[in-house]
């Protein structure tokens, strides 16, 4: 009979096996949006897990399913991770039922984050629509933490209504490193802040393009207005970074769902510069 | 005073009982089938002859195979199509499988809880786990037989005018045969148990009607015969059977020679019990009951005897099929105008389908007469006598007895109100 022994291949890593994490804390940030503090059960992973702002995890609950979710805590925070989850589908609804002490499962981190290292010494503008603030908050906190490495920080955050402004209790800390402006689509009469679209905040702060990088995350409808305004202000496409949302299943460029023309959003993205996606009309939809 | 029992439970479909009380005693009861009209006979008009078996099977989810086969037989008569013996045997198997499915459902899931003091087969599971397990296995066996031959357990697919689109593989038939043999002893045990149940003392002689075939216990062929000696072809009989439309009811009621009659397992056994040989015959003759018998409550026991018959007859048919070449050939069908009537024995009694086609093969006229509709008059007469003999009973006890009586007919309201 033939010999069944074969040459041993190099051990393969099984990308589809998630690691267990525990929920330490849950808090409601806005209607239908919750914030989770987690830590890995495995002490080695807990100590050594590293990532870049803008990268995401494949988060799952056993028996429910898996979804990509950006990490919203900064890479500088060791030992724990934070996620910000909006109730939208099967998994996120189930995540909203979690209590401290419950388990969830994660694999990753995946994708390319914001190239903060290349932005050293520059001013940073963060433009966030709605829950788009989550991945940016990771970068903001990182920049705040490494204050000396960056110039001035400007955070522009738009939301449906004042209730939906996220991380409001952190604005004071952020303001020590720069400026935070918010705007809402609609508001009750007692609202003293801005009402309108997010480009109004760009008009308000009127940023100079020199030595500045822009980091954007939000709903696709926001992109064309913001990018148009940035172009008018003279920003170069290579200095504008955007985090794209797509249907991502595998996270490793194999399942094909997240492709935007030639880009696997899960591998080359989710953060891409506008220069990279120039000419791809379907990218910013 | 009037009380209405909105839902007679553990039957197929929705029926209500309205009970008139005088000084706490029942003096009359009215049964009503409470389902909307689906108007199948109307909807079939303008359809292709080859669609009728598919559509007609949707009259009933409990006995779709017999509607399907009966429609096919009627269409083949209308179009003068003859089929090969393998096709006939597979069709017979489908009807017998339907009996296994339906009789198991009725006898053990719907009727037996009455006598074992349970509110459902589900709750029977704790005190009578063996019986429930056997019943579930038999149900599954019947389902699998229809699945293997018909392509699906409810609403078969493969059977069509002229034959079958797909013939079951030999191995699957052999597997069914094996399972039938294995399931036979427990099925006989349950049938014997059903024969020994303490049923109400009730007797009302009526007319019993069923297909009768001198060569076998009939279900697929034969003439329509009555316990009073009447016999005719299904074709002729269909024209003498009267269906009475009643005010505010979507179910019609059957009359033969102006009177109600009984069709179903009890009628078949009353007319053909001498042809029941083998295990089924043994159970029948070993039981404490003699036949012909006029106690309607015995219909459930008769179903379990037929369940055993269906199993042994299926084994015999499978052996015949396995002994020859398992191929069917669909004959050339020439579409033309014509009409055809067919009758088979559905689990609940004789089922008639009659169609008239135009020269394009479209249905211009049709009539479907279901056993539950045929039985309605007789059931009402039974209820009257049952109540009349027990006028001193407490209302609750009497109503429970009436429910059992209704259940013993195994009424299928979906069929009745098609």
């Amino acid at each position, binding site marked *: 009979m033939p010999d069944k022994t074969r040459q041993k291949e190099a051990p393969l890593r099984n990308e589809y096996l998630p690691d267990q994490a525990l929920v330490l804390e849950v808090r409601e940030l806005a209607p239908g949006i919750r914030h989770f503090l987690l830590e890995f059960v495995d002490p080695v992973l807990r100590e050594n897990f590293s990532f870049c702002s803008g990268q995401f995890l494949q988060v*799952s609950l056993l028996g429910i399913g898996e979804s990509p979710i950006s990490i919203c805590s900064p890479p500088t925070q060791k030992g724990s991770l934070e996620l910000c989850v909006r109730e939208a589908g099967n998994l996120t609804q189930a995540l909203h039922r979690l209590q401290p002490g419950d388990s969830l499962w994660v694999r990753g981190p995946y994708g390319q984050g914001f190239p903060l290292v290349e932005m050293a010494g520059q001013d940073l503008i963060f433009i966030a629509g709605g829950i788009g603030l989550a991945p940016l908050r990771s970068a903001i906190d990182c920049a705040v933490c490494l204050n000396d490495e960056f110039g001035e920080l400007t955070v522009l955050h738009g939301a449906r209504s004042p209730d939906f402004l996220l991380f409001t209790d952190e604005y004071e800390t952020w303001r020590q490193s720069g400026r935070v402006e918010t705007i809402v689509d609609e508001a009750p009469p007692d609202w003293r802040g801005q009402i309108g679209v997010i480009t109004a905040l760009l008009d308000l702060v009127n940023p100079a393009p020199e030595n500045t990088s822009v980091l954007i995350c939000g709903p696709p409808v926001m992109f064309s207005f913001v990018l148009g305004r940035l172009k008018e202000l003279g920003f170069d496409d290579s200095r504008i970074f955007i985090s794209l949302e797509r249907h991502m299943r595998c996270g490793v460029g194999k399942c094909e769902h997240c492709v935007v023309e030639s880009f696997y959003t899960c591998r080359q993205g989710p953060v891409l510069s506008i220069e990279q996606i120039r000419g791809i009309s379907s990218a910013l939809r | 005073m009037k009380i209405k029992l909105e839902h007679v439970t553990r039957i197929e479909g929705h029926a209500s009982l309205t009970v008139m009380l005088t000084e706490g005693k029942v003096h009359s009861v009215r049964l009503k089938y409470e389902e909307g009209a689906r108007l199948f006979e109307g909807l079939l008009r303008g359809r292709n002859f080859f669609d009728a078996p598919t559509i007609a099977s949707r009259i009933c989810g409990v006995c779709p195979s017999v509607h399907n086969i009966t429609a096919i037989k009627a269409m083949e008569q209308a179009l003068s199509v003859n089929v090969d013996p393998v096709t006939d045997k597979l069709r017979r198997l489908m009807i017998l499988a339907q009996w296994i499915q339906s009789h198991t459902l009725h006898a053990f899931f719907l009727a037996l809880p009455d006598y074992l003091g349970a509110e459902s087969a589900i709750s029977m599971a704790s005190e009578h786990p063996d019986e429930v397990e056997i019943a579930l296995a038999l149900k599954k066996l019947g389902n699998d037989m229809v699945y293997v031959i018909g392509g699906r357990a409810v609403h078969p697919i493969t059977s069509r005018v002229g034959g079958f689109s797909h013939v079951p593989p030999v191995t699957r038939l052999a597997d069914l045969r094996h399972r039938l043999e294995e399931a036979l002893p427990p099925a006989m045990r349950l049938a014997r148990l059903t024969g020994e149940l303490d049923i109400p003392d009730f007797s009302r002689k009526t007319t019993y009607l069923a297909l009768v075939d001198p060569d076998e216990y009939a279900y697929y062929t034969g003439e329509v015969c009555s316990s009073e000696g009447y016999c005719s072809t299904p074709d002729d009989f269909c024209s003498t059977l009267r269906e009475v439309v009643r005010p505010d009811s979507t179910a019609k009621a059957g009359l033969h020679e102006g009177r109600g009659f009984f069709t179903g397992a009890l009628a078949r056994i009353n007319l053909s019990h001498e042809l029941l040989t083998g295990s089924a015959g043994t159970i029948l003759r070993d039981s404490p009951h003699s036949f012909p018998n006029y106690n309607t409550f015995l219909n459930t026991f008769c179903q379990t005897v037929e369940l055993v018959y269906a199993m042994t007859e299926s084994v015999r048919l499978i052996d015949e099929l396995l002994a020859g070449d398992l191929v069917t050939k669909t004959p050339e069908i020439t579409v033309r105008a014509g009409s055809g009537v067919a009758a088979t024995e559905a689990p609940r009694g004789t089922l008639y389908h009659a169609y008239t086609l135009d020269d394009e093969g479209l249905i211009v006229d049709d009539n479907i007469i279901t056993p539950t509709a045929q039985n309605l008059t007789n059931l009402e007469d039974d209820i009257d006598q049952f109540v009349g003999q027990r006028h001193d009973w407490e209302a609750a006890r009497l109503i429970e007895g009436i429910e059992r009586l209704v259940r013993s007919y195994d009424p299928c309201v979906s069929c009745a109100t098609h």
Partner: protein
Amino acid sequence: MDETESGTSASDLASGYYAHPDLGRWLLELAADYRVLVPAEKGGNRIFQEVGTTDALCFGLAQDRTVLPAKKAFLPPEEVLFEFSAGRILPAMPLDDTIVFGLHVCELSADRLLTANMTHDRPDFHYLVRRNGGIIAGVSCRRTPGCFCEKTGHDQIVPGDFDLFLDLDGCSGWDSAGTGEQCGGKAKTSVAQPRLIAGSAAGRNLAASAPFPLENATGAIRAPEASAGSKTWPLDELPARIRDSFGAAIWDDLAVRCLGCGNCTIVCPLCYCFYTRDETGLAPETGRRLRLWDSCQLLAFARVAGGHNFRESRSERIWYRFSHKFMRMQETLGHAGCSGCGACFHFCPADIDPQQVIADVLGVTDGA
């Protein structure tokens, strides 16, 4: 198996099949130790079936294509990624003992490309465990009606692309225009001993027990000549051409005809996209995570939770199918992601022919 003098039943030969009694016996021997898949008949179709579940041990000489390509052996339509119970994950270990017999040249080539795709960047564990542990054996092909491997550059392979190759050239006389007559009918006695060519150590090991002579391969093995005038597409140019064609009218025209049924991708040897799904029983703490084939032609493919669909129109989805094959795979792996087998066209209810699509793309981007 109905064995005639030559070991090949008349009906096998008439339908372009080749069977050999020694081959059959050998495969049955192998099936004691391996999961052996061979092309066999099922309900009027040719499909890769496990030896032991079929007694029809015959090989198509490319008259009929299998419904699903050999990829199903290594990337099953449904597989368990892991099971879970009471908060613990139990990884599923894919079987690594599959032998697939009877791949045609284009399919061997597709297998190489699919494996390269699953290996590059982040390797796919489950596929590679199966594939690296598996053995593939090619078989000489005659051209299947509707195939066009010469156009996509998948018309030749080298011994490194297979473990074994069953060379049926001994059955002389058939060629690209052959109808099977030479091989069947009168010529059946000329179905000589096949030659085996080994392409790997595993193949050589296997061949040691084979009833056929093992020969040294020389040079590449080619699919039979295509019809005159058919030549390779400008594959290097196609990525740019496809990219430029985004939004062009040809895709809208295809969308008018396309039913979006997904047939083209399911039968493609180089389509591999998948989705995952969790399944639980009546006790919710026990279950499994499955991975299942998906299709980029389905409406929900790029839809995210909340309902936004990033590929809303059928024309866009069709463009993505072609861009994957002729743009992305060409750019990342250096080879077109279309083997030229013609299965997508064969199984397309709307008769969408990739050859016409590429001709149109070239035409449109030429400004014609």
